[in-house]
């Protein structure tokens, strides 16, 4: 005897299969009569009493909707077969294989009336084009409309480039290692079980500095200087520094953990 949970699981799988089959028939123009409509209706009816969640009821509705599309295809198929345009594709295929190219072309020419169309310059269009050309100002005049900025060039100092964040005052690895040492110190002094709260570590006096620290932290984790520990129930994130840089030797798939550093989050931490 199956439990209710098992039956729901089986029912979902069956409906999913029905949807996929109907979709395939629709999209790949397969014979719609491959679908056994009576059998599908029996399956849908059999599992209907099991559905309680809105998601399952939606799945049920989707299966019925897909089945209706297949029935529509069947009806179109019957209609098409009854028209004078109907030809068995296999018959046609056989015929085409046997016919010579010349004969096929001969048949096509009997049913083809190509469109007559001209693409030709006229006296009127030439006249209009000449008028346009005459009224068109030379390029050198038109380009005058966009004067080049007359700002004088000069040299920037190293301090100015650092301020503009073009250059850093320390090499990145050096900065990262200092940051790692800071984390190790903080974990030893104020940490709990060798780890500190993520926000207590990245949080700074200004929002800009916080973002910069979060940026560096991401490299600490990626390069194996530290690891993140997440407590999903309490929604808390901790960062644990390693004593030595870890090399990635296991074949385990690394995961990326997105952490939003929003101004609201930062203000909440400050309070």
């Amino acid at each position: 005897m199956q439990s209710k949970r098992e039956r729901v699981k089986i029912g979902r799988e069956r409906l999913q299969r029905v949807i996929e089959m109907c979709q395939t028939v629709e999209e790949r123009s397969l014979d719609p009569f491959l679908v056994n409509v009576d059998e599908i209706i029996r399956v849908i009816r059999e599992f209907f009493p099991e559905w309680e969640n809105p998601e399952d009821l939606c799945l049920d509705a989707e299966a019925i909707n897909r089945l209706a599309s297949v029935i529509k295809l069947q009806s179109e198929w019957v209609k098409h077969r009854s028209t004078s345009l109907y030809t068995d594709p296999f018959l046609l295929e056989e015929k085409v294989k046997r016919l010579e190219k010349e004969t096929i072309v001969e048949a096509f020419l009997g049913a083809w009336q190509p469109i007559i169309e001209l693409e030709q310059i006229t006296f009127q269009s030439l006249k209009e084009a000449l008028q346009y050309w005459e009224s068109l100002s030379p390029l050198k005049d038109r380009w005058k409309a966009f004067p080049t900025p007359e700002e004088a060039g000069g040299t920037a100092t190293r301090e100015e480039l650092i301020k503009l964040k073009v250059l850093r005052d320390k090499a990145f690895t050096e900065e990262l290692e200092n940051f790692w040492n800071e984390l190790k110190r903080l974990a030893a002094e104020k940490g709990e079980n060798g780890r500190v709260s993520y926000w207590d570590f990245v949080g700074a006096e200004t929002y800009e500095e916080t973002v910069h620290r979060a940026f560096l932290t991401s490299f600490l984790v990626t390069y194996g200087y530290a690891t993140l520990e997440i407590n999903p129930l309490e929604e808390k994130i901790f960062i644990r520094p390693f004593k030595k840089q870890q090399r990635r030797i296991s074949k385990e798939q690394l995961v990326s953990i997105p952490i939003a550093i929003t101004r609201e989050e930062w203000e909440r931490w400050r309070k």
Partner: protein
Amino acid sequence: MEKMSKRKAVYASKVKRAVHMLFYRRHKKPGVKGWELRKALGADYPKVLSILDEYLKPLDLQVKMVFEEEKPRSEKPTLEELDKARFYITLRGDLTPKEAKMVGWRIDDLAGLAITIAYIISKKGKAPRKEVEELLREKLPGWKTSLNIDRYIRYGYISQDENEQLYLDWRTRAEVDQKALIDLLLSK
């Protein structure tokens, strides 16, 4: 008498205008929509077109009306239905194989087009590209089949959706008598 000749002059001028509109390509696609003709020629444009059709008969040309969306409910379409139709000038009779070459088609490409269109018709207006390519490979070199299908798509004879299904497109509807093509192929 004077009234009669004035009317004739009006229609003669409208026929000229219709010739300019129909023969010269105005948009990306050739042909003119019914509402465009109504705007340029007035509400009696169907009459202007029938006069033009008479003029074109001895030249083996015709004015062809193609309904792109819905087919008209009765044999005589309403003005509203005509507005939505597209009008073209097409050949009235048939081309000979020699003449077909002159309009820029190689015999191979034309045979491929015939097979493609006929197969799509036989599959209720929708066929997988793969099946059509296989069918074409019977008579054409493999490298050419895909190029040919792309060419038929570019010319507007067929179209393709994201699932690689081929459909008949506007040019086939305008130029090919689908029933005649199937009958002719099966009777060979």
